[in-house]
């Protein structure tokens, strides 16, 4: 995993040094090229392939996160611009799958970055998270969506 990542970075720098252009597009292109070369090489050697599944997963997660961000932003925008309120706020208790401090921090960051939700508190044994939600039409549905769409995918990446 880490070894493959370092090799990929090394190939990127080799590519940038050989072409001699320090633009960001060249870095991105070099990284993609290095990723492709390592992927081809590793397929024949039959070594650990975890890295090659994880990088596309990270990009898929970023895209999904931005899609959720846009959807939630649209709801908040509609409520801000139109004169009446159609929000139903409330504080819910959410049981986390995340165990370590780093995982909890990343999950709290993700929740805080989606509009309409704010983390209010953590419980003493670090098992529950108290989230203030602005559009709480159905509590079970919200918890299900949060755990399957955001948390499980996030833990797949960082674990």
């Amino acid at each position, binding site marked *: 995993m880490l070894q493959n990542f370092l090799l990929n970075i090394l190939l990127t720098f080799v590519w940038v040094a050989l072409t001699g252009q320090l633009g960001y597009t060249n870095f991105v292109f070099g990284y993609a090229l290095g990723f492709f070369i390592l992927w081809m090489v590793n397929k024949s050697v039959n070594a650990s392939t975890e890295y090659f599944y994880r990088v596309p997963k990270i990009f898929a997660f970023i895209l999904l996160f931005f899609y959720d961000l846009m959807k939630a932003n649209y709801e908040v925008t509609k409520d801000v611009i139109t004169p009446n309120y159609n929000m139903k*706020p409330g504080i819910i208790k959410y049981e986390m799958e995340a165990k370590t401090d780093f995982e909890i921090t990343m999950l709290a960051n993700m929740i805080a970055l989606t509009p309409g939700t*704010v983390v209010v508190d953590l*419980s003493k044994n670090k098992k529950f998270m108290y989230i203030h939600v602005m559009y709480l039409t159905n509590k079970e549905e919200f918890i299900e969506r949060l755990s399957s769409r955001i948390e499980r995918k996030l833990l797949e990446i960082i674990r």
Partner: protein
Amino acid sequence: MNDLLIKILSTLGAVFVLIASFGVFKMPDFYSRLSVTIKAATLGIGCILIAATIHFAEFSVTTKAIAIIFFLFITSPVAGFLISKVAYITGTKLWKDSIIDELENDPDSNCTNPALPKDKIKKE
């Protein structure tokens, strides 16, 4: 192509910040105001910074902008979390039409302060 991208990104960023500032004015209680404004600091400024990097297309500008975006995405959720926690402990009221408050008098949480009964702190 690059011109169009710069226009779209900077307009989006400005619109996000504008909506957040309207939200501060319009939202009825503290928590929803907070959850509207945290995103302006990250999403709006992030969009504007990305537009700036595409416009200048210089190595030094790109690295600085990426560093700023990285630190914004790390620090502003933590700040929002601490602000909302302090607000709850000091007894800021939820909106009158709120559905549930599962944090109130929950023995698991750090926020309930047994020395101060909730009815006495929560005054408008």
